[in-house]
């Protein structure tokens, strides 16, 4: 019995190490390519977004895969993380604080603010189930985007000023306006780079993988598999679901902070923080395998690169992306397709064994 537990633990450890290994090797390869100049500027520009999307995919997988709840509002948490961290960086830009320190605190602020909102939203929302939960999280994501788009924020000698109307309503006495409604934040310091992105991704992976294999993680999964049974052995379903949701929001906030400090101007557009983005992240999670953290990272990387690799096909690339998406879903989930696929695989296997026998 003990041996089996030990073997199981070793297996998990090995699997986790493979995940970290893949990320580190990918980092080394890309760094080497950069040193030798074998990398296009297009690809260089994609490196930080790749890390951002990987982090977001891991974050959403915690909710969708581990906690078993469908959330369509993760871009909202990313938005909160992005704007809160960028606001901090803008406030501290001329304070003389060391850049590394400032960025570190910005990331922490992004994570904490997003976690706070995740917690607030999670309390009412996690009472709902299935598709209703999905639509409410989608609604929250849209509300966040809408509010950020209307928000004006500035600081002067009298302290911070907020307005949802326009910059005139801030009643500023000199000072600087940081968030300008739909124009968002301009002039965010570009602190994000590939190395920091990879470090953050590794930290996130470490936290999530450890969480999954901890007592808490097993409780969350037990509730996912059978809520009533889990509650009957004394697990507080709401508490654990809320915990997973809050951690996931915090990670999404980290992704947002990374995203914000990679761009000099930050705006809450439907494209980057709308439900389309949430759906995009969900696509990463589902394609990578629900509940499979390593798969999420790989899917995020492949699916972000795919449209770029298809750039030569210009107008057709998103079309191909859509077809690939449908085809992949049918291949992996449709019973009739799976049967067909297995039959083809089987015939290949038979052929190869036939060949061996003939020798």
């Amino acid at each position: 019995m003990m041996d089996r537990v030990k073997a199981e633990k070793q297996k998990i450890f090995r699997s986790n190490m493979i995940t970290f290994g893949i990320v580190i090797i990918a980092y080394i390869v890309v760094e080497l390519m950069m040193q030798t100049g074998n990398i296009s500027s297009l690809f260089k520009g994609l490196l930080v977004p790749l890390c951002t999307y990987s982090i977001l995919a891991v974050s959403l997988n915690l909710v969708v895969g581990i906690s078993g709840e469908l959330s369509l509002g993760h871009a909202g948490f990313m938005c909160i993380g992005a704007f809160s961290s960028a606001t901090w960086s803008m406030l501290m830009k001329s304070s003389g604080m060391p850049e590394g320190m400032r960025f570190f605190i910005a990331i922490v602020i992004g994570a904490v603010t997003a976690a706070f909102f995740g917690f607030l939203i999670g309390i009412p929302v996690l009472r709902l189930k299935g598709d209703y939960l999905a639509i409410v999280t989608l609604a929250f994501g849209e509300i966040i985007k809408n509010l950020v788009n209307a928000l004006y924020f500035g600081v002067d000698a009298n302290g911070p000023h907020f307005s949802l109307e326009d910059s005139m309503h801030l009643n500023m006495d000199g000072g600087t306006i940081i968030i300008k409604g739909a124009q968002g934040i301009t002039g965010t310091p570009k602190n994000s780079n590939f190395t920091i992105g990879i470090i953050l991704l590794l930290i996130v992976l470490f936290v999530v993988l450890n969480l999954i294999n901890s007592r808490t993680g097993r409780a969350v999964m037990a509730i996912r598999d059978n809520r009533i049974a889990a509650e009957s052995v004394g697990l507080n379903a709401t508490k654990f679901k809320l915990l997973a949701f809050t951690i996931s929001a915090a990670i999404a906030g980290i992704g947002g902070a990374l995203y914000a400090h990679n761009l000099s101007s930050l705006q809450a557009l439907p494209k980057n923080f709308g439900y389309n983005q949430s759906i995009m992240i969900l696509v990463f999670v589902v394609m990578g395998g629900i509940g499979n953290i390593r798969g999420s990272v790989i899917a995020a990387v492949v699916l972000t690169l795919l449209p770029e690799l298809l750039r030569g096909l210009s107008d057709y690339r998103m079309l191909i992306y859509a077809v690939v998406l449908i085809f992949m879903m049918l291949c992996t989930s449709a019973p009739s397709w799976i049967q067909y696929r297995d039959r083809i695989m089987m015939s290949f296997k038979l052929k190869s064994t036939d060949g061996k026998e003939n020798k």
Partner: protein
Amino acid sequence: MYKKQLVRNDEVAKMMSFISYLLNGLSLGSVYAIIALGYTMVYGIAKMLNFAHGDILMVGGYTAFIAFNSLGLPIPVAILVSMVVCTLLGITIEKIAYKPLRQANSLSVLITAIGVSYLLQNLAQLIFSANPKSFSSFVPLKPVKLAGGQLTISGETIVTIVTCIIIVAGLVTFINKTKAGQAMLAVSEDKGAATLMGVDVNGTISLTFAIGSALAAIGGILLCSAYPTLTPTTGAMPGIKAFVAAVLGGIGSIPGAFVGGIILGVLENLAKAYISSKLSDAIVFSVLIIVLLVKPTGILGKKIMEKV
């Protein structure tokens, strides 16, 4: 005395502008309701969120545009062509993309629907380019002036509201009075039992998609008549809003979709007029959240008992 008259006039003007906002809201709400009917019927029967529904609306809009502007067909024929194209498209999508996944988990179906939505949007972009087309209204009615010209009701508003009422009444009758409608109810209740009772489940599901898509075509034409710009993403936001309307009213319920759509449209327009034009979306979505928290199955939704 004169001053009193002025105040009265002012009040009348305020009242009239309120009524006109309300009517515009009812009209927008009717469009949402028509689209939401498709969402709700498909959800009721196939238990899937058909994210591509909004894009079928867009296809309906483009087809009508081509039929009317490029081919010069008369309006009723153009509407019919658009409905037929959307119906065929809906059935085809169901057969190719959704039917094989009927036994699969709901997330794979959701992602497939998203894939179909991307596919339709990008096909439209390839064919018609991303530049907006200006859609000429399909409603030949002249605006009606009431209260000595203080209140103008556009023809589109009247036609949209009337169409919506006719469609809802028609659908309710269809479901309750015809054999095919009863079959739909049976399939949405229990697919297995319906099969045992001799109901053609596949046919019924196809019929549902056909009706939903035809309604989307009508919704698309009405929407584009009132807001005359047509782009490949025209259907996206109304699609999401209609989905919200369906959930608000209680997904799976036809009167629910109607009620949800109307509430959503009126709320959106009044919020835009009286609270903040920028925050209208936030207000609409907040109402949805509040309703769902108080009544988790929507306004007219059925309570489903959970089996242990």
